[in-house]
């Protein structure tokens, strides 16, 4: 069947769905939605619509990126507004169905806003301020079109880019990508077309690998794309395969993403059924097949040579480059390795042209950047903004600033390989080069916001711990260096270090960078170096005063109950304390026994907000001497 016929068929199926009198209910069931309880909502909706005198269709969709509002439900009424509801629970379902599905009451008190776009146009909720700052290319139909239906993808313009590419010469396809200025979204920002050209010029059997080993703790853009719009990635891979002359593609996905794997498998099956993948695809003479490889949980596998070792069934060890994979890759064959997002842009560039892609972003970094916003933000979730947008816009206008008005402290970009940037650098534009200059990297695109209650030394220690555990062990500087860097940081958080250790930390960081083969080791010191550079005073407070300004480092912090605020009779803290460390003095005022306290923070959490009597003191010597431990006599009595 020709593609035009496939398109017409999909289009008419789609129009039959959306232009009739059918009410559509979309439920976001990506991993984050499921964690918030969307499967129970889905079940409740299916039960509730049974026996209604209307035709109602309930579909599962992916994620719109508004994770903090999950579970999300969109009700699309023929001839009416499409309304998006947030924090939906099974208990709200009868009201929604009765209100907006059966009648015309849009239940505004439960709504997030109206939904515009769809049918190939970016889906937006104009009532939310964040959409004014976003530009959604990759996310344009995520959370709206069903990832389980290839018809939806094709009807909204999908696979048109592939068909167009198949009508061109491979060299022309590469030229178009070159004109678009697309740079690899895996983190380093290497020009995509340059890689493609090298691989195209190589001889013999070749492979394409889609890198979906999103190992950075704090990034989940690739997961959302694969769960919400898997066909975009498949189409991009097929175009890449055609351009470089490969017939076999592999998607390397983390096994921690079971839903992404399931939806990809389904999408591959559907694309093969429609002959948009496989032998002589879309009526051309080109054949391309895609296989899913499940990663087995090693952060280093995200490095391209290590990933190829994993696909070959070996320990995931990186190799020297050059030779680059485009020359000597999987099983010694020329191999193209591209990130999920990079490949997902390709169909759009082919379909709408390089000029269209260049309209967004900056001259050096065209297009958009996708970020996973997490940490102490109001609006956690995904955001897609034009390159060149400032971090301030990302954190405040889209992310909504810090929760409950806490003081902003810093933003960590790029995970364990990235850096931590302070408030003064918030006006840095987001693009590959500016971030590098500031000491961070675009990296995987994980953005973690920290507030006054987070300790930067502890955060640097956390990332170093991660790098230490994930170091594959090949290079000595990385294996032993990260081990000792962790030890030094750990000592600082325990108040056992002096300025000598601070100097040693700097020296060691430089050595690890110089002596490591792959990105993991070379960038592992970044969190330490940037925090040392921008938060020198916090390190000094730990080292010189044995004080943790954020009250996070356990050895330097004490929980203390303010006698003037304690209510005496409520006993919440006493009951919550797992260590039985809290007792009453002769006046009924509660006291934390510092000798027994495990610093779990339960007392602080359960103390009723109207009293707010539990505070953290650092250094521990601030606890008044009379209120530190249980007096000997009293403890014997009890």
């Amino acid at each position: 069947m020709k593609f035009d016929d496939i398109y017409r068929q999909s289009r008419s199926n789609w129009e039959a769905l959306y232009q009739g009198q059918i009410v559509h209910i979309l439920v976001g069931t990506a991993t984050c939605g499921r964690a918030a309880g969307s499967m129970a909502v889905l079940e409740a909706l299916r039960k509730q619509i049974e026996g209604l005198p209307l035709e109602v269709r309930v579909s599962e969709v992916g994620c719109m990126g508004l994770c903090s509002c999950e579970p999300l439900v969109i009700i699309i009424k023929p001839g009416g507004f499409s309304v998006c509801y947030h924090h939906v629970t099974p208990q709200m379902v009868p009201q929604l169905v009765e209100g907006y599905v059966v009648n015309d009451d849009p239940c505004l008190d439960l709504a997030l806003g109206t939904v515009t776009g769809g049918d190939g146009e970016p889906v937006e909720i104009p009532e939310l301020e964040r959409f004014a700052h976003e530009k959604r290319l990759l996310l344009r139909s995520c959370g709206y079109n069903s990832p389980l239906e290839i018809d939806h993808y094709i009807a909204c313009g999908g696979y048109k880019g592939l068909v167009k590419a198949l009508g061109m010469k491979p060299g022309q396809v590469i030229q178009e990508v070159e004109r678009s200025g697309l740079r690899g979204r895996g983190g380093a920002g290497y020009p995509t077309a340059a890689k493609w050209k090298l691989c195209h010029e190589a001889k013999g059997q070749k492979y394409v690998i889609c890198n979906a080993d999103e190992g950075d703790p704090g990034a989940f853009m690739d997961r959302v794309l694969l769960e919400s719009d898997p066909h975009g990635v498949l189409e991009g891979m097929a175009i890449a395969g055609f351009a470089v002359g490969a017939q076999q593609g592999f998607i390397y996905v983390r096994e921690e993403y079971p839903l992404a794997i399931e939806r990809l498998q389904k999408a591959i099956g559907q694309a093969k059924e429609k002959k948009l993948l496989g032998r002589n695809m879309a009526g051309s003479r080109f054949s391309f097949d895609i296989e899913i490889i499940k990663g087995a949980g090693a952060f280093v596998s995200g490095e391209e040579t290590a990933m190829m070792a994993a696909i070959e069934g070996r320990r995931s060890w990186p190799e020297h480059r050059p030779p680059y994979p485009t020359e000597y890759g999987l099983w010694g064959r020329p191999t193209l390795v591209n990130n999920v997002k990079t490949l997902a842009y390709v169909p759009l560039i082919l379909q709408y042209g390089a000029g269209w892609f260049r309209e967004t972003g900056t001259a050096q970094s065209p297009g958009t950047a996708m970020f996973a916003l997490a940490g102490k933000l109001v609006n956690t979730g995904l955001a897609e903004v034009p390159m060149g947008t400032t971090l301030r816009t990302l954190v405040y206008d889209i992310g909504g600033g810090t929760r409950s008005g806490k003081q902003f402290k810093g933003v960590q970009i790029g995970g364990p390989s990235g850096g931590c940037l302070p408030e003064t650098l918030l006006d840095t534009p987001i693009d590959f080069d500016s971030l590098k200059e500031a000491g961070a990297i675009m990296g995987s695109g994980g953005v973690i916001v920290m507030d006054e209650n987070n300790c930067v030394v502890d955060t640097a220690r956390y990332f170093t711990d991660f790098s230490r555990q994930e170091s594959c062990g090949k290079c000595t500087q990385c294996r032993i260096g990260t081990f000792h860097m962790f030890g030094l940081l750990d000592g600082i958080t325990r108040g056992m270090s002096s300025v000598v250790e601070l100097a040693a930390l700097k020296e060691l960081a430089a050595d690890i960078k110089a002596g490591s083969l792959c990105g993991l080791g070379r960038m592992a010191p970044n969190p330490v170096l940037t925090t040392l550079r921008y938060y020198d005073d916090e390190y000094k407070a730990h080292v010189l005063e044995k004080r943790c300004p954020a009250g996070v480092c356990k050895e330097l912090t004490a929980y203390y109950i303010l006698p003037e605020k304690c209510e005496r009779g409520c006993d919440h803290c006493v009951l919550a304390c797992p260590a039985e460390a809290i007792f009453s003095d002769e006046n009924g005022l509660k006291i934390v026994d510092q000798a027994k306290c495990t610093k779990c923070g339960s007392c602080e959490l359960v103390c009723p907000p109207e009293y707010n009597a539990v505070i953290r003191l650092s250094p521990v010597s601030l606890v008044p001497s009379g209120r530190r431990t249980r007096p000997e006599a009293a403890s014997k009595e009890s």
Partner: protein
Amino acid sequence: MGENVQNINADLKKILTRERRNRCYLISILQDIQASRGFLSGEDMREVAKFLGMPASAVWGVATFYNQFRFTPPGRRPVRVCMGTACHLGGGQLVLEAMARELEIEIGGTTADREFSLERVACIGCCALAPVATIGPDVYPRLTPPKVEEIVVEIKADSTAQDVAGSGQ
């Protein structure tokens, strides 16, 4: 008992099919064995080595490299506490410690009745709901130590109730 052993071997036969007799399938074979048994035993790995014609030490070398593989049986309800960045900043360490305290096991350990095992995992991709943990297939969002206590008490009561109902039949 004899029947059980046969079942287990039938399992392995299903995984070790002729078209997978290639080194590049080693990891996916190990993944399938772990999916069916819950862990990798020394015997299983020796079988795989024989099947692929490689030294058992090489199979062991690959298996121990990757975080996914475990070599002791997990609990019926594996508890996994996320230690991703967002969870860490939200107090994931305190949640992990609370889990260990409430389940009365060490991190990486399994309860004596094999009901729960506790492990730390790298990001499970629910950063917006941090800190999170999974117990069996269920995801628990926005945890705090007091919430952990509640959940564990509830689950323990639940499984005791099931045991009572089961023994009553």
